[in-house]
């Protein structure tokens, strides 16, 4: 048995070598609806390119991030294509970890990409990853509950209007809560929402010299507003709610307003899974006294790591998966509502898509309103909307998120949370060499 095990191990090592000759692309990706759909449709690609085989590695987002970061930082060469976010692309490109995508197919129309998204995945005018689907954030609300409560939510609401509507929609006796917002700690969980919210209140993470700004009145205003609103009109246990928990609450009819990623719209309007599919209204991300809609912008992109030996085939696949023809392929097989959103201008000009996706216009408005190179009203030394595009942000963002989640849970006050955030961010930024 022992010998057999060793032989099996050796055989699998050999198998890897022989695979390498047959041009197999190993693609690392996240498990979400659009990516799963792409995996199902790859027959179309392999028929057109019989010399290329595809091998998928699907992982949960955080596991994937850790996995691909280890691999790319050590030039492990395990993957030929990686699915990465707009947070990673500029950082990795500057490190020289990603290949510039200069071998994409001829009919890949770079100018058709939404400008905000294209900028987010480009460094010095070169494209370093190709967006597969993109999202911003917006308000989703129950039209029926708003009507019952006698409130209207304008297309460009302010936070005060949202708060008023949420309080009126709340009916705790029927477990209906006016507003559901993220509370679970994490740089991509509650801090995405709170950074965007802070932007809309005129707050910023750092001043021009990288000094943290949690001791400024704008942050206090934003955080206090969030905690007070959630206490009055939010669901119980909100400090452990992330995207999924809020999605479950909203689609089972427990939430009046949910402010989150635009991609949620396709879930809550799906009559198979959502009880409120035909009752959802949309509005832009609220403003809090300054002209700023949060600047939330995210995209999942396909990039080619510098360690791969199959760059040409990899770019062939990326061209297939992210060009306009792919959206038409999805539309023909699964309908226009299932097309990956938020990457191409042409999609939003398509009448059939607009008809199939009632949230198309607002998604486009939200995405065009987002400006990640100037995320806040006051000047800042960083880019990124609902995150700060520096490598340290994952760690700092999650630690600050824990403070704010504790403030929401009531185990510390808003002031204590802000003081904690200020202290830990100052410490980390000094350690990182930003604060001289």
């Amino acid at each position: 048995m022992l010998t057999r095990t060793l032989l099996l191990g050796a055989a699998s090592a050999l198998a890897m070598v022989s695979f390498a000759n047959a041009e197999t692309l190993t693609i690392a990706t996240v498990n979400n609806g659009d990516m799963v759909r792409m995996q199902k449709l790859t027959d179309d690609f392999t028929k057109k390119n019989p010399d290329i085989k595809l091998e998928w590695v699907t992982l949960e987002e955080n596991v994937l991030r850790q996995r691909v970061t280890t691999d790319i930082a050590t030039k492990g060469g395990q993957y030929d294509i990686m699915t990465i976010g707009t947070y990673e692309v500029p950082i990795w490109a500057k490190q020289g970890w990603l290949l510039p995508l200069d071998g994409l197919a001829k009919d890949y129309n770079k100018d058709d990409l939404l400008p905000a998204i294209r900028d987010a995945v480009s460094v010095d005018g070169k494209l370093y990853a190709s967006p597969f689907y993109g999202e911003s954030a917006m308000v989703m609300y129950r039209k029926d509950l708003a009507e019952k409560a006698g409130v209207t939510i304008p297309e460009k609401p302010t936070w005060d209007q949202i708060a008023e509507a949420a309080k009126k929609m709340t009916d705790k006796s029927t477990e209906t809560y006016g507003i559901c917002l993220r509370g679970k700690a994490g740089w991509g969980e509650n801090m995405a929402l709170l950074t965007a919210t802070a932007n809309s209140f005129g707050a910023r993470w750092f001043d021009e010299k990288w000094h943290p700004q949690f001791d400024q009145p704008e942050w206090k205003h934003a955080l206090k507003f969030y905690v007070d609103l959630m206490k009055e009109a939010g669901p119980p246990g909100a400090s452990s709610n992330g995207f999924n928990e809020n999605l479950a609450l909203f689609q089972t009819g427990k939430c009046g307003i949910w402010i989150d990623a635009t991609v949620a719209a396709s879930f809550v309007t799906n009559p198979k899974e959502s009880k409120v599919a035909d009752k959802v209204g949309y509005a832009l991300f609220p403003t809090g006294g300054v002209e700023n809609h949060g600047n939330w912008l995210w995209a999942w992109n396909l990039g080619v790591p510098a360690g791969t030996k199959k760059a040409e085939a990899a770019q062939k696949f990326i061209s297939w998966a992210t060009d306009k023809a792919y959206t038409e392929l999805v539309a023909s097989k699964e309908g226009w509502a299932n097309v990956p959103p938020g990457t191409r201008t042409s999609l939003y000009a398509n009448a059939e898509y607009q008809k199939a996706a009632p949230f198309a216009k607002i998604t486009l408005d939200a995405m065009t309103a987002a400006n990640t190179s100037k995320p806040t009203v006051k000047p800042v030394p960083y880019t990124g909307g609902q995150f700060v595009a520096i490598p340290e942000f994952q760690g700092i963002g999650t630690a600050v998120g824990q403070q704010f989640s504790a403030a929401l849970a009531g185990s510390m006050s808003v002031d204590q949370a802000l003081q904690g955030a200020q202290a830990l961010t100052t410490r980390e930024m000094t350690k990182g060499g930003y604060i001289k």
Partner: protein
Amino acid sequence: MARATTTRSKVIFTVIGWTIGFLIFFPILWTFLTSFKSEGAAVATPPQFLFFDWTLENYREVQSRSDYFKHFTNSVVISVGSTLIGLALAIPAAWAMAFSPTKRTKDILMWMLSTKMMPAVGVLVPLYLIFRDWGLLDTRLGLVAVLTMINLPIIVWMLYTYFKEIPGEILEAARMDGASLMKEIVYVLTPMAVPGIASTMLLNIILAWNEAFWTLNLTAANAAPLTAFIASYSSPEGLFWAKLSAASTMAIAPILIMGWFSQKQLVRGLTFGAVK
């Protein structure tokens, strides 16, 4: 009167025992039930316990999306392989420590155990680089090696405790009768230590089966075991609880069944030497 008290306490202890057992088992039961629900029913509030539309849709979906058998084979090879190599290394080591201890035996044992105290992520990058240079990334051979090393301290410790229970006099008697060292280990020591070795083996297979740090970080497509199979169904953006539950049920079923059949051995092995 005395009898009544005994019966009552018996009933109480039985109830407590079953309650604790049920509580521990509940997450697995819930996962199992959820795997037969639709995605909508999986997140319904209040939760639906038994009265929902049972469906096999999730299993069908999981089957069509992933190659379960490949992941399963990898899991078996990795867990069984690492356990057997581990035992082959640990039996002589534990024998030496138990029957001819030196002044430093205890220290060596402690040192071995101390290697388990370091968080795995601390050596991720160095190990990753070694694996990359030796071409071991995403190979079963590499995973067998790393899991063997990780679990070796536990195997040595467990075997050491079992071997300590065996009277040295019996081995001496064998030696008096002219048995060689090899014969002594194979014909005298091993048969007496079989329950201990068996339970060590079973426990180690379970540990290796469940290992989810190295098996996720050192594999990609070829050597990924069932841990990666489960991880591919988890998502922070989208409600896929039912599919995730179906994948989890499929991943734990083999080891659960193995544990069920061998529970007597496991319990006996784990309590071996508990009462002196």
